[in-house]
């Protein structure tokens, strides 16, 4: 009875704790633990029963607990520049300190890196592999400067998946079970669909979801995509949101949703509640971001070509035209009033096309937007005053537009 009434948030907390504990236990008994990038082909690890933790998740958690600075300073003391990705600085610091109030993760025996999110992870993970003297599997996903993933890229990636399977077989000393892979791929796709469907419920007006919750559930889609528990969790969350939408409930109990915006880029983890409260103060609900699609990795179970294409299709591995179409569609699907662009000092790939994306999306949709300076985990690169000023500006623009009848 108790289990039935457990909320998805409670399940989330429990699963996350278990996820880290299992990895620590595995390490303690001498098993193999991998560190993987957030949108990597985890299906291969799951199939081989290799425990995996995600440094990006962990760095974000450290950031959200306002613990990032000591790790960052440690890395900078080792010679890491203040200009590189702060997730990397947090993680490379953690690798040596190995103690965090945000929870601990075991050191890896294997690096599992996929460049569909950026080239930076190649450098970051190369350094981990080098420092710890452990093997690294790299899935190099060629940047899609054409609109779609080319056949040549697909073949190159599929062959890397096959190569990785051989490496994993050698590391684990057992044959790769393709039937099991098919099963994991099926679950992963279903979980991805469930995640996407849940996040799409925010299209309702008012939205039953506030996007800062989305940031919390994101940790789970990163680490639970290939697991039945993950699928169950997202189905549960989806059910909760459906119910809220059916009852016409908005994101907050104590305030009305007046404006709907999307957040472009990663959250400012150290200021998660500050950034949230400023929006809420003005009745602005962040209903979505570019994230829901990032883990909507959909392919045909058992088909490695289709899997290769799906992993390479992540929006940060796509060209500018796709980036613009993607956001323009979000504006339409979610009936947005505005867009908040996070110029994230950590993420040069997202930054150096952001101005052009903003111009084109605005030209196409007419929806106003602002850009603020921040960082995903380095607390020194964000000013709450500047952020609030930008949000006020956005609100003025959204209000004028609404009053103008648009």
């Amino acid at each position, binding site marked *: 009875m108790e289990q039935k009434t457990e909320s998805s948030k409670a399940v989330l907390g429990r699963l996350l704790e278990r996820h880290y504990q299992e990895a620590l236990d595995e390490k303690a008994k001498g098993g193999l633990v991998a560190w993987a990038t957030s949108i990597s082909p985890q299906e291969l690890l799951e199939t081989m029963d290799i425990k995996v933790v995600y440094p990006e998740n962990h760095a974000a958690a450290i950031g959200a607990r306002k613990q990032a600075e000591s790790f960052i300073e440690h890395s900078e003391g080792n010679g890491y520049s203040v200009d590189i*990705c702060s997730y990397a600085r947090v993680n490379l610091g953690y690798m040596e300190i190995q103690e965090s109030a945000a929870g601990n993760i075991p050191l890896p025996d294997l690096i599992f890196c996929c460049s569909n999110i950026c080239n930076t992870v*190649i450098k970051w993970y190369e*350094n981990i592999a080098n420092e710890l003297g452990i093997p690294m599997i790299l899935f*190099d996903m060629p940047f899609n*400067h054409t609109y779609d993933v080319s056949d*040549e890229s697909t073949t*190159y990636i599929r062959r890397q998946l096959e190569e990785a399977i051989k490496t994993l077989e050698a590391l684990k000393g057992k044959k790769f079970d393709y039937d099991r892979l098919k099963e994991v791929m099926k679950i992963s796709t279903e979980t991805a669909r469930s995640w996407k469907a849940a996040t799409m419920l925010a299209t309702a007006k008012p939205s039953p979801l506030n996007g800062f919750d989305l940031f919390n559930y994101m940790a789970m889609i990163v680490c639970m995509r290939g697991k039945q528990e993950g699928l169950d969790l997202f189905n549960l969350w989806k059910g909760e949101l459906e119910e809220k939408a059916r009852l016409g409930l908005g994101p907050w109990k104590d305030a009305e949703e007046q404006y709907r915006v999307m957040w472009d880029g990663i959250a400012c983890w150290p200021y998660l509640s500050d950034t949230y409260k400023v929006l809420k103060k003005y009745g602005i609900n962040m209903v979505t971001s570019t994230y829901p699609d990032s883990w909507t990795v959909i392919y045909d179970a058992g088909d490695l070509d289709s899997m290769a294409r799906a992993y390479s299709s992540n929006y940060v591995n796509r060209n*500018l035209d796709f980036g613009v179409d993607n956001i323009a569609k979000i504006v339409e699907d979610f009936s947005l009033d505005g867009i908040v662009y996070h*110029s994230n000092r950590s993420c040069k*790939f997202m930054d150096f096309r952001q101005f052009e994306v903003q111009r084109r999306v605005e030209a196409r949709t007419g929806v106003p937007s602002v850009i603020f300076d921040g960082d995903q985990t380095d607390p020194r690169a964000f000013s709450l005053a500047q952020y609030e000023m930008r949000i006020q500006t956005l609100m003025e623009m959204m209000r004028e537009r609404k009053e103008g009848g648009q």
Partner: protein
Amino acid sequence: MIIDELAGIAHDPRKSVDEHIARTGKKAIGCFPVYSPEELVYAAGMLPVGMWGGQTDISKATQYLQSFCCSIMKANLENGLNGVYDALSMAIIPTFCDTLKCMGEVWKTAVPKPECFTFVFPQNRKLEAGVDFMRSELERLRARLEGISGAKIGDGDIERAIAVYDEYRAAARDFVKTSPSYPLTVNARVRHNVLKAAFFMDKAEYAAKLRAATAELKALPPEDGGSRGVVLTGLLAEPDGFLDLFADSRLHVAADDLVQESKQFRVDAPKEGASPLDRLARRLSDMDGCSLLYDSARTRGQKILGMVKDTGAAGVVVCMMKFCDPEEFDYPIYKKELEKAGVPLLYLEIEQKMDSAEQLRTRIQTFAEMLGA
């Protein structure tokens, strides 16, 4: 001397490229950092031209790029927006880093001429799958170049181009091996500009000039000005004002581990291959110790140590291009290796346009004194 002539070309690349186009009637193709398949451009009967930024004031580019973008890319975009590259028929923009990926996309939008060709270098370049992918990219470029020139590029043309480039690479290696014996004549600034001229000349002509320049040097008695040799590492070492600080402090370049210099010519194409494109693809597999190329073995530190040992250099100077993530990630790893080996190390942050090179004078002087220069 011939080295002065070559150094002069690096100072006025536009003149060299325009003259070449006027003299030969050939088209010119821009090649963004850090590596482009120049051999293929050469085989197409066109002049590959290096696009390595410059001392440009940044204004229009700020509409596209935030302040924390590397100065080379900011300068390239600014130049593109100002029509500086109009004489080029195309610009090849590879995708070695996140900034370059954005540059290709921004270029397509912002710069009407020259058009851009995004070239995707595989990072898993040692796997056969990577070699095959690289070959498919080369085929794609080949077709585009044929479209521009209106003529087929035969395998024989590519073989000949590879031979020209291997000769250029050998000539450049001989020059950098010879130059430390002449620290006064070939000071840090001259050395850099002589090597940089390669980006703006026909490589066969450049190689011939460079061989003659090296022969001219070898005919001179070795110089001993009490100067100490250092190894430079980084993306590039510019501007001239920065390099002058080395001579002023009685330091010269014993060897370099710079992407813009020795990494361009350290590795030849393999002698054998299934096809000339295969040889070009496999050359990429053989290029190690570069921050822009996946290298889980991280051989860079050992390579720098090897250079220090081979040349008897007194120390290493890190020329860190501000906002270059790949270089910034490499530094802590090789720093540790160099420190462990007891090699003196000086870390300097640079930008292409430096009003503040003078601020580095004291640091370079102090380092030189420590090395006994």
